């Protein structure tokens, strides 16, 4: 086989797949065959580059040219110009900032400059369905070294402890300590388990999905090492069935690892045995909570149980179990290969390494980013995220999903790490970062997350089952303009009760979005209650539409399109909205060509 001179990397993450990247791959292969170049150019399926907003992404090496929003129709031009004639297709290059300010290579972009990729190191770099490529990217080096040198488990655990790695699932517990507890825990029959939490349920979060889609082997290798370190021979990956691509890639990866003897009995002739099984979750948010997750793996209804005993002592099937999150595992082999010193040198005093965030909401570069701990919210939003679209003003960022809180614009310079976020009433969470602008109503946001918790509460404990519902009712009352100032006090009191008495983290953290918005945006709540007004113009019950008679030209467009015939008027005369009939759909406003319709 001759030297492959050119690799065309096509993103096959969930985002780009839904914008038809598999068809682009087919078209590329067809065009290359037509040009007689299929032997010297390789098309590689790869994981997420992070630039989900402008997908599908195609990167061509050795030039490193990054093409965005590629369509099947662009393929002949890419092959004929770039591959055949060596001319980069300028019009498809990723545009950044000013008109005409094109950037050839992804690493030159503002989006990448501030990033540091550890957990995502192989995403967009290797083919996630090829164990050979993973091995070529230094994969299985850590396991190989540990098994040939028979590294004492304590040494591995000490390395993790010294690295300062903390759980990336949200709570931020020391990973090394967790491994230590599981290692130390006695098991009567010697059986212990290793498990991976891939039940990523926060709305807007897709970090773990992207790691599993882009680099499943790094999680598998880390779990194998974990098995060796804590003395387990069986592992489980609990993953949501809603992640079909990640599930498929994991199945392929586990199959290839077994074929290579990197899972199963006598791994690399060392006598160590370890195997993995997938368990698909049906999509209950509470199953991301560790005790509920293990109950679900055991085949029961996913409900949490009180802790202690902690999983490290009494977990799956009553045996000591090590349970880590996907992103945590994705860091392990990097630390073992590069040394704990290098990892500990990144980040802040108490939060080491990097964190992956799924950027979403009102942000230009929706996508996946990995930054050193301690990076400020401002860097993430303004530099990496490209700011708020349409010239709107940044209002708040929500981290940690339904368990987290809102960070107001005044705290935009807060460094993102576990402790700083907790101190301001939010939390790191798994890494969802939703950006909000002036058009978002904070009461409505709190209500949205609470509604999610009401739906997802498993119902086992009454504080969560009843408490979240009552809180939700109170917030609804406020958004409908029927709230009183006493309600605000009741909400706060209820929040504290819920935090103190709920059985698991779902209920304990459900009040966070409410408490943090009450803390930083109390005036918005007060406006809803006292002035019966929604400052952001979101809460329907509190707003109405009016036609500015000076601007109205009487074109009748609004009247013709109104679904409830609430608008009346004669041709070329000012129109009027009948407030009793109006359902506040806003269609008239978006249709009006003269800006004559105002929302109040």
């Amino acid at each position, binding site marked *: 086989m001759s030297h492959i001179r050119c690799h065309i990397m096509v993103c096959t993450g969930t985002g780009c797949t839904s914008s038809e990247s598999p068809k682009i791959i087919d078209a590329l292969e067809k065009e290359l065959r037509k040009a007689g170049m299929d032997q010297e150019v390789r098309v590689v399926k790869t994981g997420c580059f992070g630039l989900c907003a402008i997908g599908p992404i195609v990167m061509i090496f050795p030039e490193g040219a990054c093409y965005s929003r590629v369509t099947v129709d662009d393929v002949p031009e890419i092959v004929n110009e770039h591959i055949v004639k060596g001319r980069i297709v300028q019009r498809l290059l990723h545009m950044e900032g000013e008109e005409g300010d094109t950037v050839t290579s992804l690493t030159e972009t503002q989006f990448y400059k501030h990033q540091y990729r550890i957990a995502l190191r192989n995403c967009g770099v290797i083919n996630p369905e090829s164990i050979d490529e993973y091995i070529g*990217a230094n994969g299985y080096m850590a396991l190989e070294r540990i098994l040939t040198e028979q590294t004492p488990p304590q040494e591995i655990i000490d390395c993790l402890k010294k690295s300062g790695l903390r759980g990336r699932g949200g709570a931020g517990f020391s990973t090394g300590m967790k491994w230590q507890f599981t290692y130390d825990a006695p098991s009567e029959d010697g059986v212990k388990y290793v498990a991976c939490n891939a039940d990523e349920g926060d709305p807007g979060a897709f970090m773990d999905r992207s790691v599993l889609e882009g680099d499943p082997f790094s999680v598998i290798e880390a779990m194998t090492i974990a098995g060796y370190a804590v003395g387990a021979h069986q592992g489980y990956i609990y993953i949501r069935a809603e992640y079909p691509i990640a599930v498929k890639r994991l199945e392929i990866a586990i199959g290839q690892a077994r074929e290579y003897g990197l899972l199963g009995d006598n791994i690399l002739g060392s006598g160590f045995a370890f195997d993995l099984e997938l368990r698909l979750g049906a999509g209950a948010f509470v199953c991301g909570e560790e005790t509920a997750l293990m109950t679900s793996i055991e085949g029961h209804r996913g409900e949490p149980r009180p802790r202690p005993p902690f999983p490290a002592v009494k977990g799956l099937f009553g045996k000591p179990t090590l349970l880590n999150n996907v992103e945590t595992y994705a860091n392990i082999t990097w630390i073992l290969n590069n040394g704990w010193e290098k990892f500990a040198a990144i980040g802040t005093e108490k939060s080491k390494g990097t964190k992956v965030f799924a950027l979403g909401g009102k942000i230009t570069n929706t996508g996946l980013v990995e930054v050193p701990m301690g990076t400020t919210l401002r860097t993430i939003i303004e530099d990496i995220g490209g700011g708020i679209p349409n010239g709107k003003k940044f209002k708040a960022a929500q981290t940690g999903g339904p368990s987290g809180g809102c960070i107001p614009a005044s705290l935009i310079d807060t460094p993102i790490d576990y402790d700083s976020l907790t101190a301001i009433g939010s939390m790191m969470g798994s890494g969802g970062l939703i950006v909000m602008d002036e058009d978002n109503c904070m009461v409505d946001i709190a209500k949205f997350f609470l509604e999610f918790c009401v739906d997802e509460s498993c119902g086992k404990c009454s504080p969560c089952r009843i408490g979240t519902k009552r809180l939700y009712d109170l917030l609804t009352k406020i958004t409908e303009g029927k709230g009183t100032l006493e309600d605000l006090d009741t909400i706060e009191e209820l929040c504290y009760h819920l935090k103190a008495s709920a059985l698991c983290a779902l209920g304990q953290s459900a009040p966070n979005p409410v408490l943090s918005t009450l803390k930083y945006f109390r005036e918005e709540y007060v406006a809803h209650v006292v002035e019966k007004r929604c400052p952001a113009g979101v809460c329907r019950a509190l707003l109405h539409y009016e036609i500015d008679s000076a601007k109205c030209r009487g074109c009748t467009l609004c009247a013709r399109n109104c679904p409830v015939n609430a608008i009346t008027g004669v041709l070329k005369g000012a129109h009027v909205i009948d407030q009793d009939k109006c359902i506040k759909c806003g269609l008239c406003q978006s249709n009006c060509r003269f800006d004559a319709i105002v929302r109040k």
Partner: protein
Amino acid sequence: MKSLAELRAIREKMKKQMDVRESGDDAIRVVVGMATCGIAAGARPVMTAFLDEIDKRGLTNVTVTQTGCIGVCRLEPIVEVYVPGEEKVTYVKMKPEMVPTVVEQHLVNHNVVTDYTIGAAE
């Protein structure tokens, strides 16, 4: 079931193949003129000869790309070699049999094969 030695062999093999994705600035670039004139003069076998030779020697940090008409059609096939920090070298009237010499002398040992350059042809 793979042995340790096999695992290491796969790693070495794949590292070489994936080297092309490290678009480092320090890579040597071999650019083959592949416009109509180049192809008619036989640029295609020259290019595959480069790819084969690089693979045979297991060279890393060398990229092979194509380009359009360089403008001196009478001297095709033309191959330009860019070594970082050095002046571009243009080889003309290349034939596949000349390729191993260029790879060995220029790409590996950093000695320009003056006999094949545009200067010698003029």
